[in-house]
């Protein structure tokens, strides 16, 4: 286990460097001159040259790259071209909003997904199963931004029950629609994973033994089957949590939620290079770290992985 963990952690470093490099050069080729867009009307050669120097844009690219890497080590992503604030502190300011939404979405996804999956497996090949699986395949196929629009239309415009968008000072009412939207695809995956994993487990001998002993059906389901069936579900949940924390660009833009996703999209639309670099790098690191933790937890829980050294469960999509 320790060797496996050490190997995984060591692999983290070159990938991190790769992510930093790709992020730097990707943003570097952005069209448009950030200085010109900053000065706007006050066009003046001296100011432009001064700004260019101040932002280190007059240095050769490898010097800028080295400076970028050196900054990353000190967790310094530079200052925003637009607001002048340090990027790192703006990121930290936005992160709690994203975290709140991600945690609520995760709870929805686990509670609804696991219950639906267990129900479908328990009532295998009945109307319950078909209904649950039909709903989940539609859930997976439905674009998250469209579900958001649909929910806004039904719950705030037609029924007037919930606010259509905004943060609302943190009131729960404002969180419900974005959290449900964010949780949609994940809930569907969790339900499908729980169902198939439960079906695998229910076929095992020890379940038959438990039933033969006369243990009540609900205890067999929740005490024996679900405990063992949850292991693969945890990988899905973990990977989804990583993408909730980072990939909420669509959900946050629809609901005007002041989190990281919308922050990054705004930065991209405004060509705010230090902010884009910082945000993209930060999100990739958060995503990688969560995936690493999930993999290690999974290896710890399932000894078979340590032997082969590689996980055989790539989570696509």
């Amino acid at each position, binding site marked *: 286990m320790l060797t496996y963990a050490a190997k995984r952690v060591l692999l983290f470093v070159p*990938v991190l460097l790769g992510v930093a490099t790709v992020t730097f050069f*990707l943003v570097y080729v952005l069209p448009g001159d950030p200085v010109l867009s900053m000065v706007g009307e006050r066009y003046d050669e001296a100011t432009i040259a001064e700004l260019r120097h101040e932002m280190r844009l007059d240095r050769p690219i490898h010097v800028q790259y080295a400076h970028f890497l050196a900054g990353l080590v000190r967790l310094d992503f530079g200052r925003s071209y637009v607001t002048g604030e340090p990027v790192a502190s703006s990121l930290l300011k936005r992160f709690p909003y994203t975290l709140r939404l991600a945690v609520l979405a995760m709870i929805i996804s686990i509670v609804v997904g696991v219950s639906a999956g267990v129900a479908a497996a328990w009532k295998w090949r009945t109307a319950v199963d078909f209904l649950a699986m039909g709903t989940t395949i539609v859930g997976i*196929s439905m674009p998250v931004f469209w579900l958001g629009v649909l929910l806004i*239309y039904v719950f705030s415009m037609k029924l007037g029950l919930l606010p259509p968008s905004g943060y609302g000072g943190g009131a729960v009412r404002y969180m419900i629609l974005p959290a449900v939207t964010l949780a949609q695809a994940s809930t569907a995956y969790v339900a499908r994973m729980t169902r198939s994993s439960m079906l695998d487990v229910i076929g095992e001998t020890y379940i038959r033994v438990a039933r033969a002993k006369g243990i009540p059906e609900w205890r067999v389901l929740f005490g024996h089957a679900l405990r063992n069936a949850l292991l693969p579900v945890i990988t899905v949940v973990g990977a989804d949590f990583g993408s909730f924390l980072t990939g909420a660009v669509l959900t946050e833009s629809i609901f005007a939620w002041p989190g990281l996703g919308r922050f990054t999209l705004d930065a991209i639309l405004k060509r705010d290079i230090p902010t884009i670099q910082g945000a993209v790098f930060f999100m990739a690191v958060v*995503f990688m770290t969560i995936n690493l933790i999930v993999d290690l937890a999974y290896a710890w829980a399932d000894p078979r992985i340590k032997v082969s050294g590689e996980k055989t469960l790539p989570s696509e999509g």
Partner: protein
Amino acid sequence: MFREVVRQRNGAVGLTIAAIVLAAAVLAPLVAPYDPYEIDMEQSLHPPCLSHPLGTDVFGRDMLSRLILGARISLEVSVFSRLISLVIGTLLGLAAGYLGGRIDSLVMRLADVTLAYPGLLLLVAVMAAVGPSVASLIVALGIVGWAAVARIVRAQVLSIKDREYLTAVRSLGGSPGRIIARHILPNCVSQLVVVFSVGLGMGIMAESSMSFLGLGAQPPLPSWGSMISSGLDYLRVAPWMSLAPGLGITMAVLGFNLLGDACRDALDPRLRHLWR
């Protein structure tokens, strides 16, 4: 294989939907009841009726006609970007798996870096860098998707490269090129078909998401994603503007997901974990 796919009920449903979407895409100008670009301000924001089954948008353009043409854009992006991913991923996966050593670790680290970016983030950043258009979206989506393909191909190569019959070919003087082309690649085909078909739905989803964010197809092109976002301002008075294209995306993605599932079950049940 066709029979295997159709025998599964889900596969038959998926195939039907996919065929409808494909027909709409190919025959778009023939089957569309109106010119999807024709502006008629007198018909602006007309609710669904007999002559405009899905209503009209703010410029009085027929939503059904725009939806049909939107299928063409979605499929174009999805199919071509998946082909690019498939080619890059297969080449690099073959190289990594067959040559091993340094090339293998280089390719796999590159794949790790690509997969380290969550969801749409890399795509959003690439599209911001190269500027939004259908062509650049195809290329960007194609490049971003290579890593998953390469991993699958590499795993497949590793699992067969040391089989006895390949040792026999090698000892008979078969060149690496011949071994790859005649023996290893054919063994990857069924997996590649599955990856391709499962990926089509994801491609449609990615295209509409990017166009929704304004980073994909640009107006006046009727992309499903951008149609939804332009309908947002009129959600209260003309909900059909946003709701109809979303229904189109959901149906198309659903069809390709079901079809992909059925292909996977028919060709290679071992890939079940790819898409549950």
